[in-house]
């Protein structure tokens, strides 16, 4: 093949949290830590528009959202841009309205979906209801291309994780833990 790779793109994209730790255990421990310290940070929370890239390797072997987890305030806008030159992506909220998926957005929140975005195209949505928004990429959900947005008022930490909803493990593994998002503000795919 004559596809060029940058050094960063050659390796698998791995979750940025400890993969060996039991996920639920980490959620609770991390949640307690975040509640105790409450250190929300990251550039997204102060940006007028929070940017999320839809990205992938040149040969399509890996795809991801970057950041894959982000903390914002109610009323902030999130904008997705397809930066992948050889693929289409979507940002589609988990909700029955979207391909009969389980609802994984807050009560009262309106489901969103960008539909397919070709390279260079963008989609944005303003999230006003506090809570956890899980979303997926239509053609890449089964490859674990999912993301999570936590919309939190200042000091708000009382978020509960959603049930597994019979989702494939590769999908569940793609959601950064809520506590880590609260603590770090942004979670990026880890390249190795």
């Amino acid at each position, binding site marked *: 093949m004559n596809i060029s790779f940058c050094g960063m793109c050659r390796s698998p994209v791995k979750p940025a949290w400890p993969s060996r730790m039991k996920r639920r255990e980490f959620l609770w421990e991390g949640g307690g830590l975040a509640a105790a310290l409450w250190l929300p940070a990251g550039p997204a929370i102060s940006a007028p528009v929070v940017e999320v890239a839809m990205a992938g390797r040149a040969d*399509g072997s890996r795809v991801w959202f970057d950041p894959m987890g982000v903390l914002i305030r109610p009323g902030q806008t999130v904008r997705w841009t397809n930066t992948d*030159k050889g693929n*289409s992506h979507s940002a589609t909220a988990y909700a029955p309205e979207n391909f009969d998926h389980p609802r994984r957005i807050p009560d009262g929140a309106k489901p969103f979906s960008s539909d397919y975005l*070709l390279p260079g195209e963008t989609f944005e949505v303003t999230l006003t209801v506090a809570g956890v928004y899980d979303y997926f990429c239509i053609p890449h959900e089964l*490859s674990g291309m999912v993301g999570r947005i936590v919309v939190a008022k200042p000091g708000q930490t009382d978020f509960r994780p959603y049930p597994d909803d019979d989702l494939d493990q590769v999908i569940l593994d793609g959601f950064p833990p809520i506590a880590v998002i609260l603590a770090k503000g942004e979670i990026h795919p880890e390249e190795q």
Partner: protein
Amino acid sequence: MTRFPATVAALSCLAASAAFAAGPSDAVAVNPPKAPYQKVGDLVALPDFLPGIGELFVDPATLPAGPFVAYDHDGRLVSTIYMIPISQMNADTSFDNLPAPGGDVDHVDIYYNAGHPGVEEPHEHIVLWHVPVAGEASVAK
């Protein structure tokens, strides 16, 4: 008397070359290929030209496996591609007698793809290149 063996030898060479050097079928020889092939970019939400692959066509009835045929910017047939879902690579599924319309194969690439519109699940790309390795540059971008 020497002409007969020489003629036989020449015909044998021609036959051998015909057997081992097959060009693409008329249906796919030039861009666009004939029906039932259709441009993938017209069937699903994908760019018309895919970096690393080229301008891609497929008979929708053959999805997901294909064959897909790909052309470079000059309309030259560069590869035939099969896309096999990982979920169907098991003891109970086989893909038999897939057409191979592209003619001579210079080399083969096999690699994982996370999915894309049209084949929206992880799958393998099996690429029969009809051009030398250096010719892949013609579809790099």
